[in-house]
């Protein structure tokens, strides 16, 4: 048994050496050229120092998620109660949650039982576990959606990443998802992507396992917004951004107050310092 483990460790070490230390440079090389196209930068309500979430947009995004994405993608860290952020009432959230079944228990008889989900329950995913999810999708596990808008951020490159500090650019993930969803196209001549779907905005190759999920009028928006592919992509992206960073508006408001306080405090200290040091040449 021990030798088997040893061999396994050696294999892992070798893999780590190859990729991590990149002594062979193979796996690093495959990452270097993608995505083929940089994400297209969009206007988002949540960008900038006073960023906020547009509740109507999040509600449309939720609808896109439920009717399209939720067939394959889970949102494990989200609870139904979180939908209060989108402007839904407690009763609406209760009804929404009740449409899903969760396994609870064991009850007093020691049996597990099914019951309708409650607002305190986490979002019920489409599959029982990751293995089932991968098996149902030709081995490609559809990633969980909760943090995806933050987990996808292609390199900005030099010198853009320096300018980003001053432009407060933090919407890389959102731009990436929007660009990917609206970026499906026919593979160029001579490029064979096999079973995959060509998309130059994909971060890990020139094609991905997910087919183009959006199409014109696929989802009917309750507020009468025209259901174009761009609109759907934008709304689901905003929804995903909210899911990944629900405290974003509060964080930015808090930051504004904290920094305002610190700037005033610094000003007072500056003049105090000037006064204190006025009798010493330095």
């Amino acid at each position, binding site marked *: 048994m021990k030798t088997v*483990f*040893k061999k*396994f*460790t050696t294999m*892992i*070490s070798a*893999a*780590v*050496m190859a*990729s*991590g*230390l*990149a*002594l062979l*440079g193979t*796996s*690093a*090389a*495959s*990452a*270097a050229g993608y995505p083929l196209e940089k994400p297209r930068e969009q206007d988002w309500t949540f960008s900038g*120092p006073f960023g906020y979430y547009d509740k109507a947009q999040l509600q449309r995004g939720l609808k896109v998620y439920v009717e399209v994405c939720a067939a394959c993608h889970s949102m494990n*860290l989200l609870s139904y109660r*979180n939908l209060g952020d989108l402007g839904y009432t407690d009763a609406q959230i209760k009804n929404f949650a009740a449409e899903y079944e969760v396994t609870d228990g064991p009850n007093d008889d020691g049996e597990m039982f099914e019951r309708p989900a409650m607002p305190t329950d986490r979002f019920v995913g489409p599959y029982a576990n990751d293995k089932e999810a991968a098996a149902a999708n030709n081995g490609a596990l559809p*990633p969980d959606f*909760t*943090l995806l808008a*933050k*987990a*996808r*951020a292609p390199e900005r490159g030099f010198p853009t990443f320096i300018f*980003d*500090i001053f432009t*407060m650019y*933090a919407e*890389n*993930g959102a731009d990436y998802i929007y660009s990917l969803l609206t970026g499906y196209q026919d593979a160029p001549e001579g490029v064979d992507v096999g079973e995959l779907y060509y998309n130059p905005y994909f971060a*890990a190759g020139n094609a991905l396992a997910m087919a183009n999920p959006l199409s014109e009028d696929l989802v009917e928006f309750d507020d009468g917004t025209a259901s174009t592919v761009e609109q759907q992509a934008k709304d689901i992206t905003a929804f995903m951004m909210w899911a*990944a960073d*629900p*405290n974003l508006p*509060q*964080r*930015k408001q*808090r*930051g*504004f107050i*904290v*920094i305002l306080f*610190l*700037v005033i405090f*610094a000003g007072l*200290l500056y003049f*105090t*310092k000037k006064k*204190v*040091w006025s009798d*010493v*040449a*330095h």
Partner: protein
Amino acid sequence: MSGHSTYKPTTGLGKFMDERLPIVRLVHDSFVSFPVPRNLNNWYTFGGILMIMLVSQIITGIVIAMHYTPEATMAFDSVHLLRRDVSYGNTLQVWHAVGASMFFVAVYIHIFRGLYYGSYKAPREVLWILGVVIYLLMMATAFMGYVLPWGQMSYWGAQVITSFFSAIPLVGETVREYLLGGYAVGNATLNRFFSLHYLLPFMIAGIVILHVWTLHVTGQTNPTGVEVKSKQDVIPFTPYATVKDAFAMVVFMIIMCYFVFYMPDYLGHADNYIKADPLTTPAHIVPEWYFLPFYAVLRAVDFNIGIPFTDIVLIDSKLGGVLAMFGAIAVLFFVPWLDTSDVKSANYRPTYKIFFWIFAINAVFLGYLGSRPAEGIWIPLMKASTFWYFLHFIVIMPLLGWFEKPLPRPASITDAVLSKASSGGASQIDGAAAEPQSKG
């Protein structure tokens, strides 16, 4: 240096305590009456900033630990539930993560300030060495802290960094297994890293006390590099240094808050928003930005070192890389003796000044190279940049002391300050009291 104590207890309790446990006297002598050179510039405020950062990291860390679950299947979720559901949890967690980065920003400025003004020279060798020990402990703490959120980069970063130890001949594998608590990174690794991550900051605090103690024995350096000679050269710590440090801390805090509240993810890696998956290797494993220069040094050695014209390999590329990387840090311990010049401040060392800035630019470039894949043009650049890093310490520093002709230095700090004041503050000190150094 500190001279005799000027503390005079006035209250009954003060007198009672002073004869039994003179702790108020210690604080008074260390932070009120402690004499500091009058000409310290703002680069000298980073010691105080680092102190605040250490305290800030310990306090936020202790509170985060109340919400964190050090268990492989729950660690990732516990961090994100803290961010999502706990009041102020988001600010708290981001403050700690960004704080680690800002801690390193401050320590790098602090180290480069020391290199520029020759703060490591006699009698401050021990002060400098303690500083390097703190820096090493900070790196260990930061690395283990980065593993705790158990994201993809946490996990694979831990795989790569612990594999360094397996490069040690004979005992390497055993050392690595003890470090990991198994044959690969797993729950046991997470548990011991959590324990050590909680322990090391207090060890840092202990060394910081020694660091400050030695500082208070030798006194601070100053931009002229001329030692304090009279009472006119110094001013009491409070109120002068106190208010100056306070202002610098708040300005530093503003920059930190900009990242905490507006760009919380800028200094991190997106892959850490993906739960650790032992079966999926990220396309491109990179450490945190503050380790990147050393990561470039590690990967610069991609060749075996052996006896020429034979097949005998003495040091394979893996061990060579690890040795170079640790060597890049270890060389800092010897800086007080590698620098042979008697002149402390680079302001009076025209040649060293140029090489200092080349070194600084090279160090930043080395960091950029650390973020590049080890392929194509990047490999020779890594080699050249690494070569210069060592050349600076091992060849340039010792030789400059012999060949460089330093500028005349002022007779005293007061002289320098007054001549600067009289000439409008812009021009160089022209006091010709000191003889140029003649060595070699």
